[in-house]
């Protein structure tokens, strides 16, 4: 009989992130399919009561918590100790957790500590005839595998955005506290802050409905034989400001910036999507001036509706990958798009 443990951490304000509710949904689906399974929620944070209350109507029969100032920080040693303590207290056989940056740092280590196994970036979980299977992508989202494991505990890190979020109601949950004795060795690291671009310079917006992908074509010579980098920069930033889209970039364009050339200075490797970048999840994607074949297009594997603007009607980035390919000059189109998106005077 499986004991399903949902392991989540609170956000800085004590709430649960959407990704935690997605893991909860995946676990609840498993619980429903596995007759006789137990369902436990484990929470880690400075204070977890509000988070537990926010999901009180979920099918969990027990809530475990590790709390205190030491557990407010996203740090390996203390997070691993907390997760280990909860897993031992719950005696969980299936540990389902959101693959946030915080949990992705520790879950596999905790699995190792407990003699279990870990699978991350899981995009699907299912159970049939008592057998649990998970799906995840391999070779940078180029092929999808489905498999089962005999070992327990089995840690399953759910890729944020890959599941529906649990919409269970709030209420009052009784949280059993699990004590964790930390040694000084667990506190050798301190988190001193978060570094982020200024609000108006932040171009990565995971919750945005639209991903705007820019390719190296923005920096190439245009019809007049000259590159128009300054104009490209203005068009792209204007569009981001008006549409509130998230900005992704091809590797080639980011690399140009990294090589010290005065090219689109707001781009960094954090914007990079594809083989050696991110594969973000957005409802829509609009690519501009991108070129490349299958290996380069994995960056928008998880984008819902896709449109592309390119001068090349045979562009591998778009043909067979996008729903609509506009064969046009992106400079002209985006200039007009920005005009149309401008608020009415």
């Amino acid at each position, binding site marked *: 009989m499986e004991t399903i443990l949902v392991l989540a951490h609170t956000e800085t304000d004590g709430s649960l992130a959407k990704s935690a509710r997605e893991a909860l949904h995946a676990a609840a689906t498993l619980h429903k399919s596995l007759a006789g399974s137990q369902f436990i929620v484990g929470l880690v944070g400075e204070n977890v009561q509000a988070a537990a209350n926010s999901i009180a109507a979920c099918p969990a029969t027990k809530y475990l918590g590790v709390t205190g100032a030491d557990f407010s920080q996203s740090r390996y040693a203390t997070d691993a100790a907390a997760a280990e303590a909860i897993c031992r207290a719950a005696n969980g056989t299936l540990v389902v957790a959101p693959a*946030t*940056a915080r949990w*992705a*740092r*520790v879950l*596999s*280590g905790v*699995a*190792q500590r407990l003699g279990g*196994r*870990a*699978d*991350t*970036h899981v995009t699907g979980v299912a159970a049939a005839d008592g057998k649990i299977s998970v799906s995840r*992508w*391999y*070779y*940078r989202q*180029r*092929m*999808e*595998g489905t*498999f*089962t*494991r*005999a070992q327990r505990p089995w840690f399953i890190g759910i890729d*944020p955005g890959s599941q529906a979020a649990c919409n269970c109601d709030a209420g009052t949950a009784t949280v059993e506290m699990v004590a964790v004795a930390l040694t000084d060795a667990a506190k*050798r*690291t301190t988190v*001193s*802050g*978060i*570094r*982020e671009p200024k609000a108006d310079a932040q171009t*990565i917006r*995971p919750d945005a409905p639209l991903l705007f992908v820019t390719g190296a074509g923005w920096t190439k010579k245009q019809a007049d034989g000259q590159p128009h980098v300054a104009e490209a920069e203005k068009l792209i930033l204007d569009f981001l400001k008006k549409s509130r889209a998230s900005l992704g970039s091809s590797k080639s364009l980011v690399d140009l910036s*990294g090589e010290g050339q005065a090219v689109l200075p707001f781009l960094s*490797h954090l914007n*990079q999507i594809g*083989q*050696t970048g991110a594969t973000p999840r957005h409802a*829509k994607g609009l690519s501009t001036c991108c070129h490349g074949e299958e*290996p380069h297009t994995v960056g928008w594997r998880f984008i819902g509706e896709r*449109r592309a*603007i390119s001068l090349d*009607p045979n562009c591998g980035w*778009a043909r*067979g*990958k996008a*729903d*609509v*390919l506009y*064969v*046009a*000059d992106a400079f002209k*189109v*985006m*200039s007009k798009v920005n*005009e149309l*998106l401008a608020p009415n005077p």
Partner: protein
Amino acid sequence: MSIACQIVVCGSIVPDPLQTLEPITSPAGPALKNEMMLPAVLDPWAGHALFEAANLAKNLPGSKVWLVSLGPKAKLQQVMMTVAQKVPFELVALDGPASGFTDATETAAALAEAIQAIPGLDKSRLLVFGGWESASRGAGATLQMVGERLGILDQFQGVDALKVNPDGSLEILERIEGGKHQVSKCAGAPALLGWATGNLPEPKNNPQVGMLNMRTVMPALQKAKPVKFAGEGLSFASVTLPKQMRETQIVKDKSPDAIAQEIVEWIKQ
């Protein structure tokens, strides 16, 4: 305080990202079609880790870099011919599978054992580097397990910058959600860092570095310990390429104004 570090970089090989990859079923489980024929490269994020390690070692006199690499010996040799020309390191080779379908737990066990067997390794000066995810399994699991096996409790993933202070403490930038970085300070080695892109460009080939490295690379390859994985308890039901091929509507004959209008309406839907 001496801050000379011993930096062990874990980095395997992957098929060249530009190659077409096709999964097949082999007697041992899923594999890639013509896997041994595919040109290989050093795993990209592990490559960044190696270059950062070399740069750190250059700036901290007395430091040394090892590259612990698990892969089929013949493929390792092919890749090392290029990698060895980039930065100075000593290779520790393990002759075994570099497939994305192997189990991270087994890979970690082999790597940790190889690290522990490095002569003269001083854990108080040890920094374990690697890519935060491979381009094969892409799980970000192996390094954490290696760290656990080595008893390293200070671990960081998605690292883009590391500064070693004069007192030996470490300042680390780790990627977190939303294009942000978490800033952490660690008392010092031992620590484990899974690198993202970092800040260094790929070094140019340097034949002198290559000649120096090859003095240890070839012997290391010759005495590469064979590693076999059982894959116990792991059973694949399928590995498939995405079948989703979209029927792309190609719009050639519209003016930029008309296209813009259509795009704006689509965005607002």
